[in-house]
């Protein structure tokens, strides 16, 4: 294998595809019409490989790799959908649903939620783990937006969009492991933070954790598609 070669050829789901050096498996798969489920990944933001929904199998390796951050190499053989992967993805979704308080029926994002859609796509009818039912607060101090930590899946899209696109870096993650929680400024109420009120974090949030106060009663679709265009316009300047 020669890393200097710009074009790599590989196999994804028994389909021979070509890719440019440095591309991720997810990018190449999507270019070729192969869908891999994702949650924390979003076009226009850096990838962090946090949610593990995009895990894929690589021939010759027992280790599952997140397709959003794993780059391709010559001769790679990737399987994006197998019984084993389906099982792991369902497990991940069950863990997410059990971790906090996701009550779809009364959520502003009901019908527009990426977590809910993934659950439906993966045939998630039950959560076999005991629900943790954590006592988490709602921060409604912002004049326009609310954060409900009960519905947060810690994808960090808000953190990345605020730092990478808006350039404000108001959002960050406090704590470790199960105690992790997204915060504004140095854990100040959102309304008292240096937030620029642009609303990008609300638009990229995959669930109902961040929402617009004027949008209630499950009428809150989100439109994160603006990110690649923003990036494109900036690069053009």
């Amino acid at each position, binding site marked *: 294998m020669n890393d200097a070669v710009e074009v790599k050829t590989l196999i994804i789901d028994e389909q021979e595809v070509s890719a440019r050096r440095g591309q991720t498996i997810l990018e190449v798969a999507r270019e070729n019409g192969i869908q891999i489920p994702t949650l924390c990944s979003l076009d226009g933001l850096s990838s962090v490989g946090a949610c593990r929904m995009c895990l894929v199998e690589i021939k010759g390796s027992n280790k599952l790799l997140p397709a959003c951050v794993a780059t391709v190499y010559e001769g790679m053989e990737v399987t994006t959908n197998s019984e084993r992967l389906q099982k792991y993805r369902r497990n991940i979704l069950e863990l997410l649903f059990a971790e906090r308080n996701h009550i779809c*029926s*009364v959520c*502003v994002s*009901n019908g527009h939620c990426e977590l809910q859609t993934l659950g439906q796509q993966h045939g998630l009818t039950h959560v076999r783990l005991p629900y943790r039912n954590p006592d988490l*607060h*709602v*921060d*409604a*101090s912002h*004049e326009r937006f*609310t954060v*409900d930590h009960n519905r947060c899946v810690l994808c960090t899209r808000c953190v990345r969009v605020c730092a990478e696109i808006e350039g404000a870096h108001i959002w960050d993650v406090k704590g470790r492991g199960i105690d992790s929680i997204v915060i504004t400024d140095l854990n100040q109420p959102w*309304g008292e933070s240096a937030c620029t009120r642009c609303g990008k974090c609300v638009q990229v949030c995959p669930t109902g954790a961040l929402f617009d*106060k*004027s949008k*209630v*009663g*499950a*009428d809150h679709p989100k439109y994160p598609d603006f990110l690649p265009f923003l990036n494109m316009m900036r690069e053009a300047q």
Partner: protein
Amino acid sequence: MSQTITIDPVTRLEGHGKITIQLNGEGEVEDAHFHVTQVRGFEKFAEGRPFYEMPSLMARICGICPVSHLIASARACEAIMSVRIPRTAAQLRRMLNLAQMVQSHALSFFYLASPDLLLGMESDPAARHIFGVVAAKPELGRAGIGLRRFGQHIIELLGKKRIHPGWVVPGGVTEPLEASKRDEILAMLPEAYANIQLALAAYKQIADTFRHEIEVFANFQSNYMSLINEDESIEFTVGALRVIDSSGNILEDGILADGFSDLIGEAVEPYSYTKFAYLKSLGYPAGSYRVGPLARLNIAKTMGTPLAEKELAEFKQLASGPVQSSFHYHHARLIEILYGIEKIELILADPLILDKHVRAFAGVNRLEGAGQAEAPRGTLNHHYKVDENGLITWANLVIATGQNNNAMNRGVLQAARHYVKDGKFTEGALNRVEAVIRTFDPCLSCSTHAFGQMPLVLTLLSHNGEVVDRVIR
């Protein structure tokens, strides 16, 4: 030897409840209680949630009357926001509420009560259900299903979903009405009129055969409460509360939602999770009162629509003052369905109904707010307190069933004394005791459940708790 008869669960009700009848040593009925056996906790888990989430959260209380909760809750939120919603939004909500009243009353009358009324209190319990009605009186069965569909379809057209529509929000509604939907509703009206006229005619034909039931089905003097307009016409969505006594004298009038808690107290009895509402001025239990269709027709002087107006005049002939027997709830329910259909037609005739201004926006401008509406079963009040950020710190809901609770218990006792003789109960007698509760159409769990899934277990207990007899229906 004293004995206890238990009816658990009571069937053809919305939710789960049971009845116990206490017999004394002579086998006579000493006391009877209607128990609501589950606790839901909505007031508690609302705490900490943003107030603007309340309508959709509170609508989940009930799958039959989510619209009433949506409206009372949205109105409480609007008090917190200090806004008056656009006129078109108010009219659209009124139509949604009427559509729900029509479908809920159709459910109560045709699905839950009509098996007793059309097939007979003593008829075979195995066939005493809506399918039995459809088999015996197909045209009436069809009318009932048609009326339910009429109401549900309007809710779906307006709110996108038949149950728990997210369309009603603090400040108004999320989307204006489209002309095509208005026309679709207008096209459904002729069939709805035909169905309710058929039902009214059929009810009036059989009502006389229930003379004994009318006499003992919660037939007593009580106070009544309902919303009413300034012109003394019936009202379901806005207006103010009026309370009358058993002779029709006005006890309280012009009570808006924020005055409700000064007027009404809630007592607790150890045998039920449902509270017992009473007028503070008269105390408990003397200040107990009835709400719902019977109360509304007793209080309203006019319906404001031509066909229902005639029916109201006929209804008022049933008694010299307020109509006292709860059996007449059934009749009142049918008149209200007719009113609902007429009123929906009137609302749709307004050219402004298609106006695009249907929502007001505002933040927290008051730290407390209350809202009220008439649910199909009676007056409903939502009362919230919020912090500066609009998070709920306290919530109190007073629902219709709590306000009818004392009357239901008195009614059960009255019917049990009449029908349970010498410590013996017949199937028909116990069905009548249940049927007293059904006249009120109470919403116990406020949730829909599958038809015919619950067995009825009748247990006869001796004074020391031994099971003397047990019948499973």
